[in-house]
């Protein structure tokens, strides 16, 4: 093989290896995207069975009901409400009347959360919630 040819093969194989990796990973990426909705949006969308999504809004006042580590509460965007059920430990900053994001599945109009995230900072509203709430 001439050096030129050799070089071509090396570059070609490196490049195709690269494309292969990027391609594979884009497919993996497709499966791991969570869409973010507010309660009004989630009710309009026809979610697929078992489609994991993020739901964000405010925890409605006086909606938190505890039964040991099972917790039920309502997320509102001041227009529509969604009931959420969750099992586990709530983050430190989870509070009624404050912003919250949950990850999970919508089943029979009840949102089964696998994760509850609250904001890190008292003065700070997650921009994704803030923006959507301001639009209303």
């Amino acid at each position, binding site marked *: 093989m001439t050096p030129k040819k050799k070089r071509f093969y090396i570059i070609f194989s490196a490049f195709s290896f690269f494309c292969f990796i990027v391609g594979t990973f884009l497919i993996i990426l497709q499966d791991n995207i969570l869409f973010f909705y507010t309660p009004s949006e989630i009710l309009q969308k026809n979610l697929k069975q078992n489609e994991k999504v993020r739901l964000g809004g405010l925890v409605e006042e006086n909606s938190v009901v505890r039964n040991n580590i099972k917790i039920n509460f309502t997320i509102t965007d001041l227009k529509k409400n969604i009931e959420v059920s969750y099992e586990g430990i709530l983050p430190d*900053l989870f509070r009624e009347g404050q912003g919250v994001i949950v990850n999970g599945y919508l089943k029979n109009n009840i949102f089964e959360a696998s994760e509850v995230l609250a904001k890190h900072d008292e003065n700070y509203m997650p921009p994704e919630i803030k923006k959507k709430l301001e639009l209303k």
Partner: protein
Amino acid sequence: MVAIIGNISLIFAILLSFYQFLNIRNINKIRVLNPDRNISLQFFFILTAFFSLMFAYVVSDFSILNVYQNSHTAKPLLYKITGVWGNHEGSMLLWVLVLVFFGFLISRYDKRLDLPYKTLTLSFQSLITFIFLLFILLSSNPFVVISPTPVNGQDLNPLLQDPGLAFHPPNLYIGYVGLSIVFSFTIARFYKGSFDASWAKLIKPWVLLSWSFLTLGISLGSWWAYYELGWGGFWFWDPVENASLMPWLCATALLHSTLVLEKRNTLKKWTILLAFLSFSFSLIGTFLVRSGIITSVHAFASDPTRGVFILMICAFFIFSSFILLAKKSGSIKEEKLISPISKEGTIIFNNLLMVAMLLTIFIGTIYPIFLEMFTGDQISVGPPYFNLTSTLIMGPAILIMSFAPMINWKKDDLVGLLSRLKTILFLSLLVTFIFFYINFQGPIIALVGIFLAAWLFFGTLFNFFEKTKYLKKLKNLNKTFLGMIVAHLGVAIFIAGVTGSTLWKVEKIKTLKVGEKVLLNNYSLNFDKIKKIRGKNYIGHEAEFNLYKKNKFIKTLKPQKRFYPVQEFPTTEAAIYSRGLSDIYIAMSEPIDNSWIFRFHYSPLTPWIWIGSIMAFIGGILSFSHRIFKRI
């Protein structure tokens, strides 16, 4: 008064840095002006500004807006000091302090540089300083005064009131910003035009230093998240974490490619590209973190003008450096072709994998931002994406890493190599089998992790024994080689730690009354009492757990739930019992009636994550110290 001193110092520093940058014009003159005095003065003024801000924090001078917003008289002294960089303005000042500190180090201690090259490098460093000082003065001045002076401050975010915070940002910044000096070294070299082995020798120690501190800074941050956030995890694939990992990956690639350049005088353009990319990613990291574009504990500010400003800085450096490279690349001659079975071949493989990982993380991190910009859809990319892709990439990287240092430069023979690998393979399989036998509850993939860790560990050790002729030739052992061994062993231990911590973790969430107990693996935890506590600026509850192993008392663990009244902010202080091989972790949640909710973790091998990281840091520093003291 403090504000005046601070502002004047900043103004002096910005003028000096601009003046130093203008010196580039004089580089062709016969007598080049020595930059040492200018650089020292810049360092002096920034240091003055930094310490005046610190002074304002210590004496709680609330006439300064920044102090008012982030401090409180009741805050403990340590957090008054560390609070200086616990906010946007102060942390940018720290950024610039590290920037000029590196310039200072080069001008005073790096005796290997000739005067024109040194002047040029430091002039480019001054340009970076100038631009960042401009940013501070125009949009993030920490010395803004308010009147009338408030009686007390708003306090620092309690999550940040922790020893972990005291050391995480400075170390991380030394890493981040250290890459700036590598960038300046590279840009300045275009004037000379020869990117040869001697140039690789010049930048190598500084790449090593930045890399080491980046490693330390990232692991400190991860350690802090582990015990302070109460989730028991060490890595969350949060965009901010990714922002620090990207320059680290790039610097890792750069570290290894300079080796090829040094020994084989090739991969020149690639090394230049990596040097540019490393600094670009530390700028992009700064942009992601500081612009408020992503939600996180690090996103102090969400002032859009700042975001735009930092984005412009990023664009300026990235585009100008890449245009320079594109224009000049024709004049840079690469020398030799590379055989795949050779040390340089394996290093190229390492580089490809590092860059591939960098790209996948980059895509996962910025894709949501772009999608929202163009379609308005708000999405997030989940940890499974990052976990899967990084495992797929790091797997092969670790496989090669084990024997790569043993291979000869230029060309090695495959058969000979394979026969040397037999012992290593046998030992690693043995270890994997022992793990399987004594303690197996996790998924099969965990065994792969353990195998890889053992494979790397034994491979590195084997190499060490071969080089030292089975410890007979320890005396004239090369420190660079020793540094590599320590760092690679660190990575092996780290991999084992990550495997254990993510795949073997046992989690229990229980509601307990005083007197009840919980069983966790071979341990039993008795909930003994609960009491109220009161700290300097917080109140809260502390639980006491007595930890027993087979009825033998070991230790009392005291997790806390704190509440900081000034910011109306609760925090969780986890109690961790670490015994080298595993952690017992208790985080306290909230009360229900007479009982409390707790989260318990038994996480095997988790301490190894930090042990491995520290070893990698030590290895880097060993190698750095050897290289910087060796004159060319």
